[in-house]
Protein backbone atom coordinates (compact mmCIF):
# COMPACT_ATOMS: atom_id res chain seq x y z
CA UNK A 1 0.00 0.00 0.00
CA UNK A 2 1.33 3.45 -0.87
CA UNK A 3 1.71 6.09 1.82
CA UNK A 4 0.35 9.56 1.26
CA UNK A 5 2.99 12.26 0.94
CA UNK A 6 2.34 13.95 4.27
CA UNK A 7 1.95 10.68 6.20
CA UNK A 8 4.87 9.58 8.35
CA UNK A 9 3.33 6.63 10.14
CA UNK A 10 0.66 4.12 9.16
CA UNK A 11 -0.46 1.31 11.41
CA UNK A 12 -2.62 -1.21 9.64
CA UNK A 13 -4.64 -3.78 11.66
CA UNK A 14 -1.72 -4.43 13.97
CA UNK A 15 -2.01 -6.91 16.85
CA UNK A 16 0.45 -8.24 19.40
CA UNK A 17 0.11 -11.48 21.27
CA UNK A 18 1.52 -11.99 24.76
CA UNK A 19 1.40 -14.83 27.19
CA UNK A 20 1.46 -15.02 30.95
CA UNK A 21 2.75 -18.59 30.67
CA UNK A 22 6.34 -18.98 29.50
CA UNK A 23 5.53 -22.38 28.08
CA UNK A 24 3.12 -21.06 25.46
CA UNK A 25 5.61 -18.34 24.43
CA UNK A 26 8.23 -21.02 23.92
CA UNK A 27 5.80 -23.28 22.05
CA UNK A 28 5.02 -20.47 19.61
CA UNK A 29 8.73 -19.78 19.26
CA UNK A 30 9.37 -23.47 18.55
CA UNK A 31 6.72 -23.41 15.80
CA UNK A 32 8.28 -20.31 14.23
CA UNK A 33 11.73 -21.91 14.48
CA UNK A 34 10.52 -25.07 12.72
CA UNK A 35 8.86 -23.03 9.96
CA UNK A 36 12.01 -20.95 9.54
CA UNK A 37 14.05 -24.17 9.24
CA UNK A 38 11.72 -25.36 6.51
CA UNK A 39 11.74 -21.96 4.81
CA UNK A 40 8.02 -21.42 5.27
CA UNK A 41 6.51 -18.08 6.27
CA UNK A 42 5.07 -17.79 9.78
CA UNK A 43 1.32 -17.99 10.17
CA UNK A 44 -0.61 -15.44 12.23
CA UNK A 45 -1.90 -17.06 15.42
CA UNK A 46 -5.56 -18.07 15.15
CA UNK A 47 -6.33 -19.94 18.36
CA UNK A 48 -5.06 -18.67 21.71
CA UNK A 49 -3.23 -21.08 23.98
CA UNK A 50 -3.46 -21.20 27.75
CA UNK A 51 -2.38 -17.87 29.29
CA UNK A 52 -2.23 -16.03 25.97
CA UNK A 53 -3.98 -12.74 25.32
CA UNK A 54 -3.96 -9.97 22.74
CA UNK A 55 -1.93 -7.20 24.33
CA UNK A 56 -2.78 -5.03 21.32
CA UNK A 57 -5.72 -5.93 19.11
CA UNK A 58 -6.40 -4.78 15.55
CA UNK A 59 -4.97 -1.27 15.89
CA UNK A 60 -5.05 1.04 12.89
CA UNK A 61 -4.18 4.72 12.69
CA UNK A 62 -2.32 7.23 10.57
CA UNK A 63 -0.06 10.04 11.64
CA UNK A 64 0.76 12.97 9.43
CA UNK A 65 3.93 15.07 9.61
CA UNK A 66 3.72 17.61 12.44
CA UNK A 67 0.88 15.80 14.24
CA UNK A 68 1.13 14.61 17.85
CA UNK A 69 -0.77 11.62 19.15
CA UNK A 70 -1.23 10.74 22.81
CA UNK A 71 -2.02 7.24 24.05
CA UNK A 72 -3.77 6.99 27.41
CA UNK A 73 -4.35 3.79 29.32
CA UNK A 74 -4.01 1.97 32.60
CA UNK A 75 -0.80 0.26 33.61
CA UNK A 76 -0.43 -2.91 31.54
CA UNK A 77 -2.74 -1.65 28.80
CA UNK A 78 0.00 -2.05 26.18
CA UNK A 79 1.20 1.54 25.68
CA UNK A 80 4.89 0.71 25.95
CA UNK A 81 4.43 -2.42 23.84
CA UNK A 82 2.86 -0.27 21.12
CA UNK A 83 5.79 2.15 21.25
CA UNK A 84 8.31 -0.70 21.15
CA UNK A 85 6.65 -2.13 18.05
CA UNK A 86 6.54 1.28 16.35
CA UNK A 87 10.23 1.75 17.18
CA UNK A 88 11.06 -1.61 15.59
CA UNK A 89 12.18 -3.13 18.89
CA UNK A 90 9.50 -5.82 18.82
CA UNK A 91 7.62 -7.53 16.00
CA UNK A 92 3.83 -7.45 15.76
CA UNK A 93 1.99 -10.77 15.37
CA UNK A 94 -0.51 -9.44 12.84
CA UNK A 95 -0.82 -6.43 10.59
CA UNK A 96 1.72 -4.04 9.17
CA UNK A 97 3.42 -0.76 10.08
CA UNK A 98 4.85 1.68 7.57
CA UNK A 99 7.15 4.47 8.69
CA UNK A 100 8.46 7.16 6.38
CA UNK A 101 11.94 7.75 7.75
CA UNK A 102 13.01 6.65 11.16
CA UNK A 103 11.33 6.33 14.51
CA UNK A 104 13.19 6.96 17.75
CA UNK A 105 11.75 5.70 21.01
CA UNK A 106 12.37 7.37 24.36
CA UNK A 107 11.44 4.36 26.42
CA UNK A 108 14.61 3.26 28.17
CA UNK A 109 16.56 6.48 27.80
CA UNK A 110 19.86 5.33 29.20
CA UNK A 111 19.79 1.80 27.83
CA UNK A 112 22.72 1.15 25.53
CA UNK A 113 25.05 3.73 27.05
CA UNK A 114 28.64 2.56 27.30
CA UNK A 115 29.36 3.47 30.89
CA UNK A 116 33.15 3.36 30.57
CA UNK A 117 33.13 5.76 27.60
CA UNK A 118 32.91 9.55 27.93
CA UNK A 119 29.71 11.53 27.36
CA UNK A 120 31.24 12.85 24.15
CA UNK A 121 31.98 9.33 22.89
CA UNK A 122 28.48 8.23 23.82
CA UNK A 123 27.00 11.03 21.72
CA UNK A 124 28.77 9.54 18.71
CA UNK A 125 27.79 6.00 19.62
CA UNK A 126 24.15 6.77 20.25
CA UNK A 127 24.00 8.94 17.15
CA UNK A 128 25.32 6.05 15.08
CA UNK A 129 22.79 3.75 16.73
CA UNK A 130 20.06 6.13 15.62
CA UNK A 131 21.28 5.77 12.06
CA UNK A 132 23.06 9.13 11.80
CA UNK A 133 26.25 9.49 9.78
CA UNK A 134 29.48 10.80 11.33
CA UNK A 135 28.97 14.15 9.54
CA UNK A 136 25.39 14.43 10.88
CA UNK A 137 26.61 13.75 14.42
CA UNK A 138 29.42 16.31 14.13
CA UNK A 139 26.87 18.85 12.87
CA UNK A 140 24.52 18.37 15.81
CA UNK A 141 27.24 17.84 18.45
CA UNK A 142 27.31 21.45 19.71
CA UNK A 143 23.52 21.60 19.85
CA UNK A 144 23.48 18.46 22.00
CA UNK A 145 26.13 19.92 24.32
CA UNK A 146 24.15 23.16 24.70
CA UNK A 147 20.90 21.34 25.30
CA UNK A 148 22.31 18.88 27.84
CA UNK A 149 24.12 21.64 29.81
CA UNK A 150 26.77 19.24 31.06
CA UNK A 151 29.78 21.54 30.67
CA UNK A 152 33.19 19.93 31.13
CA UNK A 153 31.57 16.73 32.42
CA UNK A 154 30.99 15.77 28.79
CA UNK A 155 34.58 14.49 28.66
CA UNK A 156 34.23 12.33 31.78
CA UNK A 157 33.09 8.69 31.68
CA UNK A 158 29.30 8.50 31.95
CA UNK A 159 29.75 6.08 34.87
CA UNK A 160 30.66 9.19 36.91
CA UNK A 161 27.39 11.00 36.03
CA UNK A 162 24.46 11.35 38.35
CA UNK A 163 21.24 9.78 37.12
CA UNK A 164 19.89 13.26 36.29
CA UNK A 165 22.95 14.11 34.17
CA UNK A 166 22.69 10.79 32.37
CA UNK A 167 19.03 11.36 31.56
CA UNK A 168 19.76 14.86 30.27
CA UNK A 169 22.46 13.60 27.96
CA UNK A 170 20.27 10.75 26.69
CA UNK A 171 17.30 13.03 26.13
CA UNK A 172 19.39 15.64 24.32
CA UNK A 173 20.84 13.07 21.91
CA UNK A 174 17.39 11.70 21.10
CA UNK A 175 15.85 15.10 20.51
CA UNK A 176 18.72 16.53 18.50
CA UNK A 177 18.82 13.46 16.26
CA UNK A 178 15.59 14.95 14.82
CA UNK A 179 13.83 11.70 13.97
CA UNK A 180 10.81 11.69 11.68
CA UNK A 181 8.73 10.01 14.37
CA UNK A 182 9.54 10.62 18.04
CA UNK A 183 8.00 8.14 20.46
CA UNK A 184 7.95 9.24 24.11
CA UNK A 185 7.01 6.96 26.96
CA UNK A 186 6.43 8.72 30.30
CA UNK A 187 9.98 10.07 30.52
CA UNK A 188 9.38 13.79 30.54
CA UNK A 189 10.33 13.93 34.19
CA UNK A 190 13.93 14.34 33.06
CA UNK A 191 16.19 16.70 35.01
CA UNK A 192 15.33 19.68 37.18
CA UNK A 193 12.43 22.11 36.72
CA UNK A 194 14.21 24.39 34.21
CA UNK A 195 15.39 21.49 32.06
CA UNK A 196 11.91 19.96 32.10
CA UNK A 197 10.45 23.21 30.80
CA UNK A 198 13.02 23.22 28.02
CA UNK A 199 12.16 19.62 27.07
CA UNK A 200 8.45 20.38 26.94
CA UNK A 201 9.11 23.45 24.81
Amino acid sequence: MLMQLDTVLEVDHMSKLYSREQISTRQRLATTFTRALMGRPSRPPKKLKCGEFWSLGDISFTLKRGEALGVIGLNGAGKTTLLRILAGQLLPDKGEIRILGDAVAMIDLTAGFQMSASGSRNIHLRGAMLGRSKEDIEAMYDEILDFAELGDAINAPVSTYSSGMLMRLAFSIMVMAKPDVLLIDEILSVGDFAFRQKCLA
Partner: protein
Amino acid sequence: MSVRKSQQIHIIRPDGRMRESVLSAIRHLINEIWNYRSHIRIIFKGRFRAAYSGTGLGIFWNYALPLVPLTVYWFLSVLRVFPNFEGVDGATFITFGVTLWFLFAGCIQIPMQVIQSRNKESMKTNFPLSASIVSEFARLLFDTMVRIILVSIIIVSTQSWPTAQGLMLPFMLLPALFLFTGIGVMLGILNVIYNDVSRVVNIILQYGIFVSGVIFPLYDIGILSAFNAINPFAIFIDASRSIVFQGVINNLQNYLVASCLAFIFFAASIRIFFVMEYRVRGIN
Protein backbone atom coordinates in the same frame (compact mmCIF):
# COMPACT_ATOMS: atom_id res chain seq x y z
CA MET B 1 25.47 16.36 1.20
CA SER B 2 24.77 13.08 2.89
CA VAL B 3 21.40 11.50 2.23
CA ARG B 4 19.64 10.62 5.43
CA LYS B 5 18.37 7.11 5.93
CA SER B 6 15.05 8.73 6.78
CA GLN B 7 14.08 9.03 3.12
CA GLN B 8 13.16 5.34 3.09
CA ILE B 9 9.85 3.74 4.01
CA HIS B 10 10.37 1.13 6.71
CA ILE B 11 7.82 -1.66 6.74
CA ILE B 12 7.43 -3.77 9.85
CA ARG B 13 5.64 -7.09 9.34
CA PRO B 14 5.45 -10.21 11.49
CA ASP B 15 7.18 -12.33 8.86
CA GLY B 16 9.26 -9.59 7.20
CA ARG B 17 12.54 -11.45 7.63
CA MET B 18 11.09 -14.85 6.74
CA ARG B 19 11.08 -13.82 3.08
CA GLU B 20 14.81 -13.08 2.98
CA SER B 21 17.19 -15.53 1.34
CA VAL B 22 20.40 -16.87 2.85
CA LEU B 23 22.53 -14.41 0.85
CA SER B 24 20.36 -11.49 1.78
CA ALA B 25 20.55 -12.49 5.47
CA ILE B 26 24.35 -12.72 5.32
CA ARG B 27 24.60 -9.37 3.51
CA HIS B 28 22.32 -7.74 6.07
CA LEU B 29 24.35 -9.07 9.01
CA ILE B 30 27.66 -8.01 7.46
CA ASN B 31 26.28 -4.48 6.95
CA GLU B 32 24.97 -4.45 10.49
CA ILE B 33 28.35 -5.44 11.94
CA TRP B 34 30.14 -2.87 9.77
CA ASN B 35 27.74 -0.09 10.83
CA TYR B 36 28.25 -0.91 14.50
CA ARG B 37 32.03 -1.32 14.35
CA SER B 38 32.65 1.63 16.71
CA HIS B 39 30.34 0.09 19.30
CA ILE B 40 32.00 -3.29 18.90
CA ARG B 41 35.41 -1.72 19.54
CA ILE B 42 34.18 0.20 22.58
CA ILE B 43 32.32 -2.77 24.06
CA PHE B 44 35.41 -4.96 23.62
CA LYS B 45 37.63 -2.34 25.27
CA GLY B 46 35.14 -1.84 28.11
CA ARG B 47 34.84 -5.55 28.85
CA PHE B 48 38.59 -6.04 28.50
CA ARG B 49 39.19 -3.36 31.14
CA ALA B 50 36.33 -4.62 33.32
CA ALA B 51 37.94 -8.06 33.43
CA TYR B 52 40.84 -6.73 35.49
CA SER B 53 39.49 -3.53 37.04
CA GLY B 54 40.01 -3.36 40.79
CA THR B 55 42.67 -6.08 40.81
CA GLY B 56 46.18 -5.54 42.13
CA LEU B 57 47.96 -7.13 39.17
CA GLY B 58 45.80 -5.36 36.61
CA ILE B 59 46.10 -6.32 32.94
CA PHE B 60 48.37 -9.24 33.85
CA TRP B 61 45.21 -11.28 34.55
CA ASN B 62 43.94 -10.88 31.01
CA TYR B 63 47.12 -12.54 29.75
CA ALA B 64 47.49 -15.09 32.54
CA LEU B 65 43.99 -16.57 32.78
CA PRO B 66 43.72 -17.89 29.18
CA LEU B 67 47.07 -19.66 29.74
CA VAL B 68 46.09 -21.56 32.87
CA PRO B 69 44.61 -24.66 31.15
CA LEU B 70 47.57 -24.84 28.78
CA THR B 71 50.16 -24.58 31.53
CA VAL B 72 48.48 -27.47 33.39
CA TYR B 73 48.94 -29.77 30.39
CA TRP B 74 52.45 -28.42 29.76
CA PHE B 75 53.37 -29.15 33.36
CA LEU B 76 52.00 -32.72 33.11
CA SER B 77 53.94 -33.25 29.87
CA VAL B 78 57.15 -32.06 31.49
CA LEU B 79 56.52 -34.70 34.20
CA ARG B 80 56.27 -37.27 31.38
CA VAL B 81 52.61 -38.03 32.15
CA PHE B 82 52.03 -37.76 28.38
CA PRO B 83 54.42 -39.40 25.91
CA ASN B 84 55.29 -38.08 22.45
CA PHE B 85 52.58 -38.64 19.82
CA GLU B 86 52.99 -38.98 16.06
CA GLY B 87 56.61 -37.84 16.34
CA VAL B 88 55.53 -34.61 18.05
CA ASP B 89 56.60 -33.75 21.58
CA GLY B 90 53.79 -34.39 24.11
CA ALA B 91 53.65 -30.80 25.39
CA THR B 92 53.43 -29.39 21.86
CA PHE B 93 50.85 -31.97 20.79
CA ILE B 94 48.56 -31.22 23.71
CA THR B 95 48.90 -27.43 23.99
CA PHE B 96 48.35 -27.07 20.24
CA GLY B 97 45.21 -29.25 20.45
CA VAL B 98 43.92 -27.50 23.57
CA THR B 99 44.37 -24.08 21.94
CA LEU B 100 42.28 -25.17 18.97
CA TRP B 101 39.74 -26.79 21.26
CA PHE B 102 39.17 -23.58 23.23
CA LEU B 103 38.87 -21.63 19.99
CA PHE B 104 36.25 -24.01 18.58
CA ALA B 105 34.38 -24.38 21.87
CA GLY B 106 34.38 -20.58 22.25
CA CYS B 107 32.78 -20.24 18.82
CA ILE B 108 29.91 -22.35 20.12
CA GLN B 109 29.63 -20.94 23.64
CA ILE B 110 29.91 -17.21 22.87
CA PRO B 111 26.86 -16.90 20.59
CA MET B 112 24.86 -19.00 23.05
CA GLN B 113 25.83 -16.83 26.02
CA VAL B 114 25.24 -13.57 24.15
CA ILE B 115 21.83 -14.58 22.81
CA GLN B 116 20.77 -15.71 26.27
CA SER B 117 22.12 -12.80 28.29
CA ARG B 118 21.72 -9.81 25.97
CA ASN B 119 18.46 -10.33 24.12
CA LYS B 120 16.58 -8.17 26.62
CA GLU B 121 19.13 -5.36 26.38
CA SER B 122 19.09 -5.75 22.62
CA MET B 123 15.32 -5.17 22.62
CA LYS B 124 15.67 -1.97 24.66
CA THR B 125 18.50 -0.49 22.63
CA ASN B 126 17.98 -1.92 19.15
CA PHE B 127 21.65 -2.89 19.38
CA PRO B 128 21.89 -5.97 17.17
CA LEU B 129 22.81 -9.29 18.73
CA SER B 130 25.20 -9.90 15.84
CA ALA B 131 27.33 -6.93 16.94
CA SER B 132 27.31 -8.16 20.56
CA ILE B 133 28.47 -11.59 19.39
CA VAL B 134 31.30 -10.07 17.34
CA SER B 135 32.50 -7.96 20.29
CA GLU B 136 32.76 -11.14 22.37
CA PHE B 137 34.54 -12.91 19.52
CA ALA B 138 37.19 -10.19 19.70
CA ARG B 139 37.89 -11.34 23.25
CA LEU B 140 38.11 -14.96 22.11
CA LEU B 141 40.56 -13.88 19.42
CA PHE B 142 42.69 -12.11 22.01
CA ASP B 143 42.73 -15.18 24.28
CA THR B 144 43.67 -17.38 21.32
CA MET B 145 46.52 -15.07 20.31
CA VAL B 146 47.88 -15.22 23.87
CA ARG B 147 47.69 -19.02 23.81
CA ILE B 148 49.39 -19.15 20.40
CA ILE B 149 52.32 -17.20 21.83
CA LEU B 150 52.71 -19.79 24.60
CA VAL B 151 52.41 -22.67 22.12
CA SER B 152 55.12 -21.02 20.01
CA ILE B 153 57.38 -20.83 23.05
CA ILE B 154 56.75 -24.52 23.77
CA ILE B 155 57.46 -25.42 20.12
CA VAL B 156 60.80 -23.60 20.29
CA SER B 157 61.71 -25.10 23.66
CA THR B 158 60.87 -28.66 22.56
CA GLN B 159 62.21 -28.15 19.02
CA SER B 160 59.08 -29.70 17.45
CA TRP B 161 59.48 -27.58 14.33
CA PRO B 162 56.42 -27.00 12.16
CA THR B 163 56.53 -27.64 8.41
CA ALA B 164 56.23 -24.91 5.76
CA GLN B 165 52.75 -26.23 4.93
CA GLY B 166 51.77 -25.10 8.43
CA LEU B 167 51.35 -21.61 6.97
CA MET B 168 48.08 -22.91 5.51
CA LEU B 169 46.67 -23.34 9.00
CA PRO B 170 44.62 -20.08 9.14
CA PHE B 171 42.88 -21.01 5.88
CA MET B 172 42.32 -24.56 7.04
CA LEU B 173 40.69 -23.29 10.21
CA LEU B 174 38.15 -21.16 8.36
CA PRO B 175 35.61 -23.95 7.70
CA ALA B 176 35.89 -25.00 11.35
CA LEU B 177 35.25 -21.46 12.59
CA PHE B 178 32.25 -21.15 10.28
CA LEU B 179 30.88 -24.51 11.41
CA PHE B 180 31.24 -23.94 15.14
CA THR B 181 29.93 -20.38 14.95
CA GLY B 182 26.95 -21.72 12.99
CA ILE B 183 26.38 -24.38 15.64
CA GLY B 184 26.64 -21.75 18.39
CA VAL B 185 24.17 -19.43 16.73
CA MET B 186 21.68 -22.21 16.05
CA LEU B 187 21.97 -23.60 19.58
CA GLY B 188 21.74 -20.08 21.00
CA ILE B 189 18.32 -19.64 19.39
CA LEU B 190 17.27 -23.13 20.46
CA ASN B 191 18.42 -22.34 23.99
CA VAL B 192 15.88 -19.53 24.24
CA ILE B 193 13.17 -22.04 23.33
CA TYR B 194 14.50 -24.93 25.41
CA ASN B 195 16.57 -23.71 28.37
CA ASP B 196 18.17 -27.14 28.79
CA VAL B 197 20.24 -26.73 25.63
CA SER B 198 23.05 -24.67 27.20
CA ARG B 199 23.40 -27.13 30.07
CA VAL B 200 23.60 -30.11 27.72
CA VAL B 201 26.14 -28.29 25.54
CA ASN B 202 28.33 -27.50 28.55
CA ILE B 203 28.34 -31.15 29.57
CA ILE B 204 29.14 -32.29 26.03
CA LEU B 205 32.01 -29.82 25.77
CA GLN B 206 33.46 -30.91 29.10
CA TYR B 207 33.51 -34.53 27.95
CA GLY B 208 34.35 -33.61 24.39
CA ILE B 209 37.91 -32.48 25.07
CA PHE B 210 38.79 -36.02 26.15
CA VAL B 211 37.15 -37.82 23.21
CA SER B 212 38.14 -35.57 20.32
CA GLY B 213 41.84 -36.32 19.95
CA VAL B 214 42.82 -33.12 21.75
CA ILE B 215 44.99 -34.62 24.47
CA PHE B 216 45.90 -37.95 22.91
CA PRO B 217 45.27 -39.60 19.52
CA LEU B 218 42.27 -41.88 19.34
CA TYR B 219 42.94 -44.09 16.32
CA ASP B 220 43.86 -47.05 18.53
CA ILE B 221 40.73 -46.88 20.68
CA GLY B 222 38.05 -48.89 18.79
CA ILE B 223 34.73 -47.14 19.29
CA LEU B 224 36.25 -43.65 19.68
CA SER B 225 38.17 -44.13 16.46
CA ALA B 226 34.89 -44.74 14.60
CA PHE B 227 33.18 -41.84 16.39
CA ASN B 228 35.93 -39.44 15.44
CA ALA B 229 35.41 -40.09 11.77
CA ILE B 230 32.22 -38.04 12.18
CA ASN B 231 33.25 -35.81 15.10
CA PRO B 232 33.93 -32.36 13.58
CA PHE B 233 36.19 -31.33 16.50
CA ALA B 234 38.40 -34.37 15.93
CA ILE B 235 38.41 -33.95 12.14
CA PHE B 236 39.50 -30.30 12.23
CA ILE B 237 41.97 -30.66 15.10
CA ASP B 238 43.60 -33.71 13.53
CA ALA B 239 43.81 -32.04 10.11
CA SER B 240 45.30 -28.85 11.60
CA ARG B 241 47.85 -30.70 13.68
CA SER B 242 48.93 -32.95 10.83
CA ILE B 243 49.36 -30.08 8.34
CA VAL B 244 51.44 -28.12 10.84
CA PHE B 245 53.72 -30.91 12.07
CA GLN B 246 53.68 -33.46 9.22
CA GLY B 247 53.00 -31.26 6.21
CA VAL B 248 50.06 -33.39 5.02
CA ILE B 249 46.40 -33.62 6.02
CA ASN B 250 45.45 -36.89 7.67
CA ASN B 251 42.05 -38.06 6.47
CA LEU B 252 41.84 -35.47 3.73
CA GLN B 253 38.50 -36.85 2.55
CA ASN B 254 36.90 -36.38 5.97
CA TYR B 255 38.29 -32.86 6.15
CA LEU B 256 36.90 -31.90 2.75
CA VAL B 257 33.46 -33.34 3.45
CA ALA B 258 33.36 -31.62 6.85
CA SER B 259 34.43 -28.32 5.27
CA CYS B 260 31.68 -28.43 2.63
CA LEU B 261 29.07 -29.28 5.25
CA ALA B 262 30.46 -26.50 7.46
CA PHE B 263 29.75 -23.79 4.89
CA ILE B 264 26.27 -25.14 4.17
CA PHE B 265 25.43 -25.37 7.86
CA PHE B 266 26.80 -21.90 8.56
CA ALA B 267 24.69 -20.36 5.79
CA ALA B 268 21.55 -22.12 7.04
CA SER B 269 22.14 -21.17 10.67
CA ILE B 270 22.83 -17.53 9.83
CA ARG B 271 19.48 -17.33 8.07
CA ILE B 272 17.74 -18.92 11.05
CA PHE B 273 19.45 -16.42 13.36
CA PHE B 274 18.41 -13.55 11.09
CA VAL B 275 14.79 -14.73 11.00
CA MET B 276 14.56 -15.47 14.71
CA GLU B 277 16.53 -12.52 16.15
CA TYR B 278 13.49 -10.31 16.72
CA ARG B 279 11.38 -13.26 17.82
CA VAL B 280 13.64 -14.15 20.76
CA ARG B 281 14.00 -10.55 21.94
CA GLY B 282 13.02 -9.97 25.53
CA ILE B 283 12.61 -13.67 26.32
CA ASN B 284 14.80 -15.01 29.11
